[in-house]
């Protein structure tokens, strides 16, 4: 596709519900990143995939957060038993990855705004 797309753009969940956020990276991009952006803050790294392999999940705030990219393309970020502190914008970014050389620019999607009530 022309850019990184994310769906849904907005999600309202009641506390305790599970949610799934989808990211469609740019076609051919090897690397995929998830970030969490709280209101008035900069994005914070959550996890990183190279193709289907999750190489870094050090930023996931708890074991309620789970991400997958089973075929090395589309990725899903799942949050179980949502809490109010999970309310944030979740950004996905993709890049050509380490094999391409160069500065590995990350291209961002528009984000999903999650509100937990």
């Amino acid at each position, binding site marked *: 596709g022309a850019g990184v797309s994310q769906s849904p753009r907005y999600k309202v969940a009641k506390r305790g519900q599970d949610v799934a956020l989808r990211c469609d990276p740019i076609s051919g991009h090897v*690397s995929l*990143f998830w*970030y969490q952006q709280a209101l*008035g*803050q*900069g*994005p*914070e*790294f*959550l996890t*990183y995939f*190279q193709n289907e392999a999750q*190489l*870094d999940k050090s*930023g996931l705030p708890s074991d309620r957060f789970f991400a997958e990219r089973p075929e090395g393309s589309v990725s899903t970020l799942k949050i179980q038993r949502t809490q109010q502190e999970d309310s944030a*914008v979740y*950004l996905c*970014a993709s*890049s050509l*990855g*380490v094999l391409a050389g160069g*500065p*590995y*620019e*990350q*291209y*961002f*999607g*528009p*984000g999903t*705004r999650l509100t937990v009530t």
Partner: protein
Amino acid sequence: AQTVTQSQPEMSVQEAETVTLSCTYDTSESDYYLFWYKQPPSRQMILVIRQEAYKQQNATENRFSVNFQKAAKSFSLKISDSQLGDAAMYFCAYRTEGGADGLTFGKGTHLIIQP
């Protein structure tokens, strides 16, 4: 761990004037990349400019330029001839060399353009 600090929560500039946004960072690495991203209200993060730490020459992209001071760990963004469309949140970001790491962002500077 690397940290990025943006000490200006908000900046205001008259249209057509020049403004400089500040950024400092802390790292023990010698090779890394620095970026400035723009985030308009639509939330789409857009890359404005990037700098490779091994390059001494400051990066320039049209009206945007940086002042990269490696020893001082400073990376400021200068916007010349400010335009209404420049109004947005600006984030400074750091990444280690290699590409396999996520970006470390500052808290951002809200840039207001006065017509």
